[in-house]
């Protein structure tokens, strides 16, 4: 049985203008060692074909007869086959194709791509599905992407703001505190996402959008603080000490627990409080918009840890230890900046009468109680018994975040 001899006609097309694509395509389905006749009229064809074959590991033979329409015979090499032998798919492109363990040498390759073996390890140390994944990540990312708002147009910056000087100062102090905390909330997910293997890309995408959310929060709170032309408020050592324990937590689950479940969870109550007691429309709009984003950050934190606690029964004791460690680290710290606490009271009071200040103080106490209840609720969602949830919530930093 003889097969028809494979031939390829290049006409005038030269190797300087892409002829290799036609030759390569013709060789693709041939067996190593089989010969392909190459025809064409470019004067440099044989010289270029020979140079190309050498780099590709193909052999070449010239026909004996000078009048042969075949200019050269290429005998198929096997370097392309060798390159892709042992290649593997990096899981599948959809979330159901996610693997339990992402291989270091997959590096930045798209999930589902065919991976040539070899290449350096980029050191993504968070590479276990059970450690980084939550099934809600793709839909939360899609929601987050669709819910991005433009600080320039989402807020009516030209709305009338003319508050008594001391109320304005209270707003500025609260905004200064919020910016500081938002910056911690920006840095923490950004640091974590750079360590997560891109195989879990939906988690990276979600954290990237989360960091972008915080970037907007930093912007709008700063802009509100400076709206009436004054200076920023104060930043206390105790506030920065508290945030330092968040930023330096190296463990993904623990960082996400302290930041998203406990810290941002408490901020949901704070932002609701500021929305309700806002003395001007701009303060109301910036806190309301930020709160919508924060709800997503908390949702992912809770879902991620719920997923993990299903596969790791020791998780809860680790979370407990993290709260206790942080409490210990902050035992010599006074917690919330007194200026911030006073500003919250002043904001609610709105005037300097004993009755109004007393009401303001009560409201801020109630805020702290709401935060505590919210934290306990989320801890119970993570599987903590009610009494343990109450103990742990009480150990949370007085800085709120």
């Amino acid at each position, binding site marked *: 049985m003889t097969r028809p001899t494979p031939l390829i006609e290049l006409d005038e097309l030269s190797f300087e203008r892409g002829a290799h694509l036609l030759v390569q395509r013709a060789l693709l389905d041939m067996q190593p060692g089989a010969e392909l006749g190459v025809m064409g009229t470019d004067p440099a064809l044989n010289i270029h074909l020979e140079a190309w074959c050498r780099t590709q590991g193909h052999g070449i033979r010239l026909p004996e007869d000078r009048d042969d329409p075949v200019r050269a015979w290429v005998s198929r090499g096997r370097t392309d086959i*060798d390159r892709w032998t042992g290649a593997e798919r990096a899981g599948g492109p959809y979330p159901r194709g996610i693997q339990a363990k992402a291989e270091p040498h997959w590096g930045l390759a798209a999930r589902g791509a065919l991976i040539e073996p070899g290449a350096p390890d980029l050191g993504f140390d968070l590479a276990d599905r059970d450690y980084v994944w939550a099934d809600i990540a793709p839909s939360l990312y899609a929601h987050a992407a669709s819910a991005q708002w433009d600080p320039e147009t989402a807020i009516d910056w030209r709305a009338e703001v003319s508050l008594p000087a001391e109320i304005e100062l209270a707003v500025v102090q609260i905004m200064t505190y919020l910016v500081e905390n938002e910056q911690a909330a920006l840095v923490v997910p950004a640091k974590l996402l750079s360590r997560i293997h891109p195989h879990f890309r939906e988690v990276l995408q979600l954290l990237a959008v989360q960091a972008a959310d915080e970037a907007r929060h930093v912007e709008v709170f700063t802009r509100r603080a400076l709206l009436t032309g004054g200076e920023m408020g104060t930043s206390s050592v105790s506030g920065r000490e508290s945030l330092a324990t968040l930023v330096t937590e190296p463990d993904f689950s623990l960082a996400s627990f302290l930041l998203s479940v406990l810290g941002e969870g408490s901020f949901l109550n704070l932002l609701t409080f500021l929305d309700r007691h806002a003395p001007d429309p701009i303060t109301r709009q910036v806190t309301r918009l930020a709160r919508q984003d924060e709800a997503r950050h908390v949702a992912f934190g809770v879902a991620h840890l719920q997923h993990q606690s299903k596969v790791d029964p020791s998780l809860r004791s680790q979370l407990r230890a993290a709260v206790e460690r942080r409490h210990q680290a902050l035992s010599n710290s006074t917690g919330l900046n007194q200026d911030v606490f006073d500003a919250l009271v002043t904001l609610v009071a709105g005037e300097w009468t004993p009755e109004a200040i007393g009401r303001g103080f009560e409201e801020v106490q109630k805020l702290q109680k709401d935060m505590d209840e919210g934290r306990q609720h989320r801890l119970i969602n993570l599987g903590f018994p009610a009494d343990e949830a109450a103990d742990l919530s009480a150990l949370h930093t007085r800085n709120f975040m």
Partner: protein
Amino acid sequence: MIDSNHLLFGREGTLPAGSTRMIAQTPMFDHCNLTLTDAVPPDLAQQFGDLLLSMSYADPQVRPLFDLEGLTVWRPGRTNGYAPLETAIDEAGFYDAEGVITVAEYKP
């Protein structure tokens, strides 16, 4: 000029494609050779050669090195094919009797 450079220049546009004409071609010669002096102990030289020859393009660890050099395989050394090149260089007086480059402004 070697053939692979001519192809490269044409592809990159250094020489516009089709703008040059080949008027003569030498027989094939190996444009790169790994040369050892006789100061190398023969058993070491042999071992080194064996190691190179054992490198396989199918090995994902060494393939990137082959790719960097534009190679797919090592072959035993050969010096045949250099004669026309040697003659051309001698005729042009590029090197003197001691092997020193004679062209003053030549910068490799």
